[in-house]
């Protein structure tokens, strides 16, 4: 059995779709952040796989994945700090309770 690029792309698409669903459907801010992480991981998987198949020596995809990881680590740190800050104000982490963002 040979595993081609399509298998990895398909797997990443499924993971991304699951993350997408979670980000839309769940109402807890922490759960949404987790879903976002899932999507980031799916993207990374795509890049690493394509890097392996297309640029095995330059490893461009791997570098992109490294920087994506940096960004998503920063994102998760800030996101969770925000969740904590919001929790302190509203005593809740439900996204539905964050509704003051209007002009």
């Amino acid at each position, binding site marked *: *059995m*040979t*595993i*081609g690029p*399509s*298998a*990895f*792309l398909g*797997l990443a*698409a*499924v*993971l*991304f*779709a*699951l993350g*997408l*669903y*979670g980000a*839309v*459907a*769940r*109402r*807890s801010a*922490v*759960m949404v*952040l*987790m*879903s976002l*992480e*899932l999507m980031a*991981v799916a993207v*990374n*998987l795509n890049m*690493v*796989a394509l*890097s*392996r*198949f*297309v640029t095995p*020596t330059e*490893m461009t995809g791997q*570098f992109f*994945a*490294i*920087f994506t*990881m*940096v*960004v998503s*680590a*920063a*994102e*998760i*740190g*800030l996101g*969770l*700090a925000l969740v*904590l*800050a919001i*929790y*302190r104000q509203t005593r809740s982490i439900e996204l539905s309770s964050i509704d003051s963002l209007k002009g």
Partner: protein
Amino acid sequence: MSESVNGVAFVILAFASIGGAVGMLTTRNIIHAAFWLLEVMVAVGGLYLLLSAEFLAVVQILIYAGAVSVLMLFVIMLTLRRREDSVRPVEVSIGGGILVAVFGTVMYVAIARYGDRVGEMPIVVPDTAALGELLFTQWALPFEVASLVLLVALVGAVWWSREGDDR
């Protein structure tokens, strides 16, 4: 394990990662969800190994499985007033389902159309030592910028999450 991807290992890891993601979305207990996410991260780390991206595999385990999951659990812990709060009702979103269905179709079409543009796996194997060298030569500037991003994020996170009324 270099010139091709082991089919059995791939199937196992794919099953584990998708299963973990489904588990994360279907469990009602938010703490369990965090552990399911951890499982996905570890499985994806295994997939990186299959792709000969050893450095990324290790970083994946360190950052996602090690740091991010622990951070998640900490926040869950800090924002739960009672143990029972961790169990939430099942949330079903029809809009989300439609969105995912559209996305899935798009992806299916895209992969079916363009998936075979990328050929078989090249014989050349990515080399971890070369990765390190490139990271500090060709990619040195982005690397430094990334460290700045992390520093700013660190300061910002501390700023936001600290206790205090002067905000």
